[in-house]
C-alpha cells in the first residue's frame, strides 16, 4: 500500500481532513483503483469543486483542477470534450454536487460523457462548519437546522438514472474493497459513471446527531447497507430503511465525445 501511496499521491500529506473523517478512505480507494487500472498518470485529470471532499485534488499526482463551488462537472466537460483521450475523474460532495451543482449534475448525466464522478456524501456541509445539505436525511440536526430539518432529502442515484447516466453505483466507506472495485468498473464503463459514496463526518454531522464517534458512524454503514443483489430479493418495506450499495444501473451509452467525433468525420467526408 505504501508503494501505491507513493505512486498516486503527491507527498504533500497530511491532508486537511479531521480525525475520523471518511474522506481519506475514499481517496485511498481511488489510489488502489488507479493501481489496478494502470493508467498513464499524465493522461489523467482530477477535477473537483469546493468543500472538504473537493480538496482531494491537491493530493493526487495527476493533472488536477480544483474549481469553483458546484462547477466541477462543467470544467470536466470542457477537459473531456477538448481531449477525449484523457481519463477524467471528478470529485464532489453532497452540497457541491446536489445543491449548487445540481443542474450541472443533471446535464452531465444527460450528455453521458465518458468520465467518473465520485460524490462523497457525508450529509453535511463540512467545510463551512456543518449546515444541512439536500442529502441530509429529514429531521436531522445541523448548525442551520438546530431543531431538525424540515427539508426533504432526495436520492442522488435515482436522479442520475432519471437524467440518463449510463452507470450509477453506490458505495460506502465501510466496504472499502467494494468501493475500489466500483471505481475500477466506473472508469472502465464507456460513459458517464456516477458513484455516490456514503461517507462520514463525525465532527459536523455525527456530533449534532448523537453519533459523535467515528467508529459508530462506520458501524452504522456496516449494519445498514445491503448489496443490490440482496436488496432485489427483499420486499420494498424491508429495503426502505437500508442503504443499497453496488451497481444500481448500467446501460450501453451513447457517449458524447464519440458521437461528436462521428459528426466531425461525417462533415469532413470520411463517413456518409
Amino acid at each position, binding site marked *: 500500500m505504501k508503494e501505491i501511496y507513493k505512486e498516486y499521491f*503527491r507527498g*504533500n500529506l497530511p491532508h486537511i481532513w479531521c480525525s475520523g473523517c471518511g474522506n481519506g478512505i475514499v481517496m485511498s480507494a481511488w489510489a488502489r483503483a488507479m493501481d489496478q487500472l494502470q493508467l498513464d*498518470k*499524465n*493522461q489523467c*485529470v482530477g*477535477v473537483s469543486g469546493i468543500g472538504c471532499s473537493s480538496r482531494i*485534488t*491537491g493530493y493526487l*499526482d*495527476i*493533472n*488536477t*483542477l*480544483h*474549481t*469553483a463551488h458546484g*462547477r466541477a*462537472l*462543467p*470544467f*470536466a*466537460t*470542457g*477537459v473531456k*470534450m*477538448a*481531449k477525449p483521450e*484523457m481519463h477524467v475523474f471528478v470529485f464532489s460532495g453532497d452540497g457541491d454536487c446536489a445543491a449548487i451543482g445540481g*443542474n*450541472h449534475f*443533471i*446535464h452531465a448525466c444527460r450528455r453521458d460523457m465518458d468520465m467518473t464522478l465520485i460524490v462523497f456524501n457525508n450529509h453535511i456541509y463540512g467545510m463551512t462548519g456543518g449546515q444541512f445539505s439536500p442529502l441530509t436525511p429529514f429531521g436531522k440536526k445541523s448548525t442551520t437546522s438546530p431543531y431538525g430539518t424540515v427539508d426533504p432529502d432526495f436520492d442522488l442515484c435515482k436522479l442520475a438514472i432519471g437524467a440518463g447516466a449510463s452507470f450509477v453505483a453506490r458505495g460506502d466507506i465501510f466496504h472499502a474493497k467494494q468501493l475500489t472495485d466500483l471505481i475500477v468498473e466506473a472508469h472502465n464503463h464507456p460513459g458517464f459513471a456516477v458513484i455516490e459514496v456514503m461517507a462520514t463526518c463525525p465532527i459536523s454531522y455525527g456530533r449534532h446527531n448523537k453519533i459523535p464517534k467515528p467508529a459508530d458512524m462506520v458501524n452504522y454503514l456496516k449494519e445498514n447497507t445491503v448489496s443490490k443483489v440482496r436488496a432485489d430479493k427483499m420486499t420494498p418495506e424491508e429495503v426502505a430503511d437500508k442503504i443499497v450499495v453496488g451497481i444500481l444501473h448500467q446501460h450501453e451509452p451513447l457517449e458524447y465525445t464519440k458521437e*461528436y467525433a462521428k*459528426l*466531425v468525420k461525417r*462533415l*469532413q467526408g470520411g463517413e456518409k
Partner: protein
Amino acid sequence: MSKVRLVQGNEACALGAIAAKATFYAGYPITPSTEVAEYMSTMLPPRGGKFLQMEDEIASMGAIIGAACTGLKAFTATSGPGFSLMQELLGYAVITEVPIVIVDVQRPGPSTGLPTLSAQGDIQQARFGTHGDHSVIALAPSSVMETYFETINAFNLAEKYRNPVVLLLDEEIGHLRERFDVEDEAVEIIDRKRPTCPPQEYIPYDNNEPDGVPLMADFGAGYRYHVTGLTHNEKGFYTSKLPEVDASIRRLTSKIEDHVNEIATFEEIELEDCEVLLIAYGSVARSAQEAVMELREQGVKVGLLRPITIWPFHDQRIKAACTGKKAVIVPEMNLGQYAREVERVAPADTPVCTLTRVDGEMIEPAQIVAKVKEVL
C-alpha cells in the same frame, strides 16, 4: 471573384475567432449574442474544433476554462445577464491565469432589460464585476472589420498575458452589417509560452518571469500540476502565508497594468489643434466621428480620441489628451461609466462632460454636435 461581402459584427467575431486559431466554443443562447454561437456551431465541427452548448453561462465558463487548461484556445459569447453569471468564473480564470476570451454583446440592463436594443452598460462590470483585486483586458471595436481584428487581438492578449480578455461589442456593432474584406490582411497569432524544462523543474506560478507571466503547461503534457482558485504559491498549492499571497495578487494586477503601453490602442481623429475633445468608443465613436467632420466644416476645433482598449485604462494617455482642452465630452450609452475614469485622470481645470443615453438607441451625431456647441 471578389471576397468582399456584407458581414454582421457577430459573424466577424466568429470569423476572427477561427482566424485566431480558436478551436473550442462553449456557450448558452442569449440575445443579442446568439449569432456568435450559431456561427461557431456551423464552423467548428467541420474543422475538427469543439462546440458545446452548455446548460447555462456558468457552465459555459467552466467548460472553456477546462478546455483552455488542455492547451486549446477557447471562448464564449454572451450578453448582460449571462455576463453577470460569468463573473465568478471570470475571477477564477484571473487567479488561475487561464487564457480565455469572453465576448459580451451589450444590451441595456439591469436585469433582463431591453434584450434586442443596444447599450454600453457593462464597461464597469467588465473591470470590477468579479470580487477581489484583479485586472482585466477589455476591447471595444467600432466596426465589423475591427470586430474581426480585435477578436484576434483578444485571443492574442489572452495568450500573452494569461488572463481573461473581454470583447465588448454593443448590440449596434454585433448586429451591424457592413463591408467585410480581410483577404489580404496578414494577422499575427500569439500562443501562450509553454514550459520545455523537465517536469520536476516546472514552477507553474513562477513570480520571477520577466514579463510577470508564468509558463503554462497543457494538461496531458507531462507536468501534472495543480490548478486552484484558492490563493496559491508558485507551485500552485494553497497558501495563506502573507508574503506569498501578497506577491501573487500583486503580480496578477501588475502583469496587466505594467504593460498598458503595449496593450492599449487608440485611434486619433483631428486631435492636433482641437479645443474640444470627444472620447468615445464602440458604436458611439462612429457618431462622434461624424460630429467631428460636421463641426470641422463649420470651423469648430474638435477632435476625437477613440479608445479601442477600454481596460487597462491608460491614465497617462488620457490625461495628456485632456490637458489644455476647453472641455472634454464623453458620449456613451450608459450613465457615464467611462466618463468617471476620464474625470479621475483629467486635470482639475479641464471640465469633463457626459453625454449619456440609456434608452437602447444610438447616440446620434446631432446630439454630439449640439453638446459641443453647448460647452463652447
